[in-house]
């Protein structure tokens, strides 16, 4: 059945999903409640946790050092449950801009940023980001000066990456919560910079 309540035949893939799920439940391998709980947990995960981590790092230089040294432990320090996440945080500076891609599939720090956007998983992003990051970033509206080094990270194995963007100018004295509101998902992937103080 469709979600809208009007009858629509299932696609082959929807039929497959229902069938696999019912078989797994009948066999006692998973329960409907477990599936529903996981769906809800993932639905609630936006990128706020990532933004919190960034804001803390902007405010607290010692925390930032710990975050760059061991991303996973630094998240746990803030009470964020990040099971199985091996997080590596890479820092943007005036000399270096970082960007993340998974050319082989769609590896992404889901525990911090939620589900990845469709474009991150797309053929065109995955094909071009490692090869021509400057052109891709320009397409996203981000122009990086030639004398700034671009560091592209291809998450091919067990690590997951998050960019620590530079703190926007004009935010001196801001609270952590207010700073977190400047952090966008795309700035933590590296295809954008955070919002400015007046955005």
């Amino acid at each position, binding site marked *: 059945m469709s979600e809208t309540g009007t009858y629509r035949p299932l696609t082959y893939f929807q039929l497959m999903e229902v069938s696999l799920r019912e078989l797994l439940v009948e066999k006692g391998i998973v329960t409907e409640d477990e599936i529903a709980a996981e769906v809800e947990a993932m639905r609630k995960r936006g990128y706020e946790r990532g933004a919190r981590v960034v804001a803390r790092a902007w405010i607290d230089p010692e925390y930032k050092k710990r975050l760059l040294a061991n991303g996973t432990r630094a998240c746990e320090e803030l009470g964020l449950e990040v099971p199985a996440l091996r997080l590596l945080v890479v820092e943007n500076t005036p000399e270096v801009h970082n960007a993340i891609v998974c050319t*082989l599939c769609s590896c992404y720090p889901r525990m911090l940023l939620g589900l990845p956007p469709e474009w991150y998983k797309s053929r065109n992003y995955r094909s071009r980001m490692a090869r021509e*990051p400057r052109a891709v970033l320009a397409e996203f509206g981000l122009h990086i000066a030639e004398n700034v*080094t671009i560091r*592209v990270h*291809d*998450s*091919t*194995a*067990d*690590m997951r990456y998050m960019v620590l963007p530079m703190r926007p100018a004009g935010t001196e004295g801001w609270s952590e919560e207010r700073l977190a509101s400047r952090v966008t998902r795309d700035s933590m992937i590296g295809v954008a910079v955070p919002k400015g103080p007046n955005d």
Partner: protein
Amino acid sequence: MAEPLFRPGERVRVLKAYPLGHVRTPFYIRGCTGVVERICGAFPNPEELAQMRDGLPPPPLYRVRFLQKDVWPDYANANDVLEVEIYQHWLEKT
């Protein structure tokens, strides 16, 4: 972890091999030379996990930094880098 073969800062080359199975070393990086940026630790081998085996003992995993101009023939910027996680058995000394 068994003693890693390579150290941070060491130059390594990715095997120019094109085997079958589930491989996490991208096609574009095979045969390229870079520098070990860090040892990430040891993790069960994904090539084996994909075949329903346990992937143990876990091979060391490295982050290797490549100059983009050493990966793509006509890459313009001299300083841009590309960093890729590569398992030990895909690397050799240069």
